[in-house]
C-alpha cells in the first residue's frame, strides 16, 4: 500500500515535470522560429548567458530566491545584453558574431564574479549556479508550471495578436517601414518575447543548452512545411515533444540529467526531419535525383535508338 502511494506520487511528480517541460518546449519552439528566420539563432545563446548577472543582482537586492524575482532579473539582464549588442553593432565596425561572443562571455564572467561574492557571504551554494547552467527540469513544481504557463501563454498570445506585423518585419523590413509600421518598436517587441522564452527555458535546460531549444524545433519544423503558420505550430509541437520525451527518458534510469536529454531528443527530431521530410529532406532529394537521372537516361536511350534507326 505504501509502495503504491509512493508510485502514484512519483508519477504525479513526473507528470508535473513533463507538463512543465512541454510548456517550455512549446514557447521556445514557437518563438525560436523567428530567431532562426532572422538568422539570430545564436542571439539566444548570448541572452541566456547574459542573464546570469541579472539573477545574481536580483538576489543581492531582494535576498529572495523566489523564481519570479530571479526570472525578472534574468530578463532585465538578458534585455540589456541584447541592447548592448545592437548598439555596438550600430556604432562600430565590429561584426555581429564578435559582439555576441564578447557580450555572452563577459556578462557571464561578471555574473560569475557576483555569484562568488554571494557564495562568500554564505547565502547561496554551488547548486544555484548549477541550476543556472544546466536547468532543473527534474525539480519543476506545480507553482513553476503555473508561472511558465501564464508568462509563456502571454508571450504566445502577443505573438498571435501581432502575427501579421511580425511576419512582415522578419520577411521584408524595408517594405514594412514604407507602409508605416514602426519597425524599431516591432523589433523591440519580438526581442522581448524571445527574452521571455529564454528566461523561462533556463529553468528546464539551463544557459548552456538554451540555444538548442530555440533553434532545433524551428529547424526541424522548417523541413516539413513552407508556411510560416505551420512552421510555428510544428516547432511548438516539436519543442513540446522534445520536452516530454526527454523528461520520460531521463526518469527511466538514474543519473541521466534531464536538460541534456531534452536537447538530444530535439536534436534527434532535427536529424529525422532533415533526413526524411518530404520535398526538402535528404532522402527525398536522393530519390528525386535518381529518378530524374533515370528519366534522362531513358530519354537519351530513346534518342540514341532513334538516330540509329535513322542511320540504318
Amino acid at each position, binding site marked *: 500500500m505504501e509502495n503504491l502511494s509512493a508510485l502514484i506520487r512519483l508519477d504525479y511528480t513526473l507528470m508535473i515535470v513533463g507538463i512543465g517541460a512541454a510548456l517550455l518546449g512549446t514557447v521556445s519552439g514557437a518563438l525560436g522560429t523567428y530567431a*532562426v528566420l532572422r*538568422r539570430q*539563432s*545564436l542571439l*539566444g*545563446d548570448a541572452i541566456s*548567458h547574459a542573464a546570469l548577472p541579472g539573477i545574481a543582482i536580483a538576489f543581492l537586492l531582494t535576498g529572495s530566491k523566489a523564481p519570479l524575482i530571479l526570472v525578472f532579473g534574468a530578463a532585465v539582464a538578458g534585455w540589456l545584453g541584447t541592447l548592448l549588442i545592437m548598439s*555596438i553593432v550600430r*556604432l*562600430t*565596425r*565590429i*561584426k555581429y*558574431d*564578435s559582439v555576441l*561572443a*564578447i557580450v*555572452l*562571455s*563577459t556578462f*557571464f*564572467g*561578471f*555574473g*560569475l*564574479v*557576483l*555569484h*562568488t*561574492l554571494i557564495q*562568500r557571504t554564505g547565502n547561496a551554494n*554551488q547548486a544555484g*549556479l*548549477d541550476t543556472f*547552467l*544546466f536547468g532543473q527540469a527534474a525539480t519543476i513544481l506545480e507553482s513553476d508550471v503555473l508561472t511558465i504557463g501564464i508568462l509563456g501563454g502571454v508571450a504566445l498570445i502577443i505573438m498571435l495578436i501581432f502575427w501579421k506585423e511580425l511576419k512582415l518585419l522578419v520577411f521584408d523590413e524595408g517594405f514594412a517601414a514604407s507602409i508605416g509600421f514602426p519597425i524599431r518598436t516591432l523589433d523591440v517587441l519580438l526581442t522581448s518575447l524571445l527574452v521571455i522564452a529564454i528566461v523561462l527555458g533556463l529553468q528546464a535546460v539551463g544557459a*548552456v*543548452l538554451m*540555444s*538548442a531549444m*530555440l*533553434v*532545433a524545433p*524551428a*529547424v526541424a519544423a*522548417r*523541413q516539413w512545411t513552407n508556411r510560416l503558420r505551420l512552421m510555428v505550430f510544428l516547432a511548438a509541437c516539436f519543442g513540446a515533444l522534445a520536452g516530454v520525451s526527454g523528461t520520460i527518458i531521463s526518469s527511466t534510469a538514474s*543519473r*541521466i*540529467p534531464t*536538460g*541534456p*536529454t531534452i*536537447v*538530444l531528443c530535439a*536534436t534527434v527530431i*532535427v536529424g529525422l526531419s*532533415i533526413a526524411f521530410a518530404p520535398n*526538402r529532406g*535528404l532522402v527525398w532529394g536522393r530519390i528525386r535525383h535518381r529518378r530524374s537521372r533515370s528519366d534522362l537516361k531513358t530519354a537519351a536511350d530513346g534518342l540514341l535508338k532513334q538516330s540509329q534507326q535513322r542511320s540504318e
Partner: protein
Amino acid sequence: MNEHLDIQLIAIVTAVACALPGVFLVLRRMTLMSDAISHAILPGIVLAFFLTESLSSPLLILAAAGTGVLTVLLVELLQRTKLVKEDAAIGLTFPALFSIGVILISRFAGNVHLDMDVVLLGELAYAPLNRLKAFGYDLGPIALYVMGTILVLNTVFIFVFYKELKLATFDASLAAALGFAPTLIHYGLMTLVSVTTVGAFDAVGSILVVALIAGPPTTAYLMTDKLSLMLILSAIIGSVNAVSGYWLASLFDVSIAGAIATMTLIVFGLIFLTVPNRGLIAIARRDARQKWEFAQTMLVIHLFNHEGLPEAEAESAIADLHEHLSWDPTFTNQVVRYALNNRCVSQDERQLTLTEQGRAIAQQALVQ
C-alpha cells in the same frame, strides 16, 4: 608571493595564446565557432578521460582537438545541405555534442574526479598546485608548461603561415587561385583553436575562454587596421585583462576567470569610448565640429546649384532659406552667420551670394 606570480604568469600565457588565433576568428567572422568548439569538445575530453583517468594527459588535448575539428566539419556539413543556415547549424551542433558529454559524465563518471564546474568555469587558483617535478626539483606549474607550449605552437603557426592566413582571411578565392589551399589553412586554424581551448579549460573553463579568444582581438579591431599591429595589440590587451582581472579577483576574493572576463568587458568599453577616430568620444567631438562645416557646405552647394538660374533669387533669400532646406530657422541663421564669417558667402540686402571661396568649396565638395 610565488603563488601570485604563478597564477598571473599562467593567466598571461593563456590570454595571449587565446588572443592570437582569436584575431583571425574575429576577422573571418567566425568568432562564435570558438564558443561552439569550446563546448563541443566536452565528449572528446570525457572519452579520453575515461581511457587515461587523468585530466592532464596529452591524449586529452588530442581528443579535444579531434572533436573540435569534427564540430567544424559537422557545422559545414549541415550548411552544405542548404537546409540549415550557418548560425542555426552552429546553434544545433554544439549543444548536442555538449549534451552527450554531460550525459556521459553524470552517467559513468559520477564517482570519478571530473567535475562539471571545472570544465565549464575552470579554477585558475588551483592551477599552480599541480607542479612539474623532475630529479627532485620543482620546475613550476604544469599548466604553465602546457599553455606555454600551446602559445609557442600558435605563434609559430601564425609566423610561418602569416602570408597565407592573411590572404585566406581577406580573399579566400584569390588564395585558392594562387594555390594556397585556404581550406587547409582554415582547418589548421580550427585545430589550433581547439587545442588552445582545451589547454585553457583548466584555467578558465569553456564559457570564459570565449572572452579570452574574442575580447582582446575585438578591442584591438577598434584601434587599428593593420593585421600585424592587431596581433600585437591583442596580445597586450589580453595580458592587461589577465593581470588586472587577477588583482580584481584578489581584491574582492571572487572567481579569477570571472574577474578576467569582467575586465575584458571594462577594457573593451574604455577603448570603445576613448580610442581616437573610432571611439564614441571622438565620434561625438567630430560630429560637433563637423556639424557647422557640413551645414556650411550644404548651404554653399545649395546656392551654387541655383546660381544664375531663374529661381536663384527665391532660393537665396535669407528669410526663406530655412524653408528650402527644411532647417530650424535659428539653426539656419547660425549657419548663415558661420558662412559669412568664413567669407564663403556675402550678403547684399536680403540675398546671399557666393564668394569665390564659397564657390570653390561647393565645387570641391561636388567633385569628390
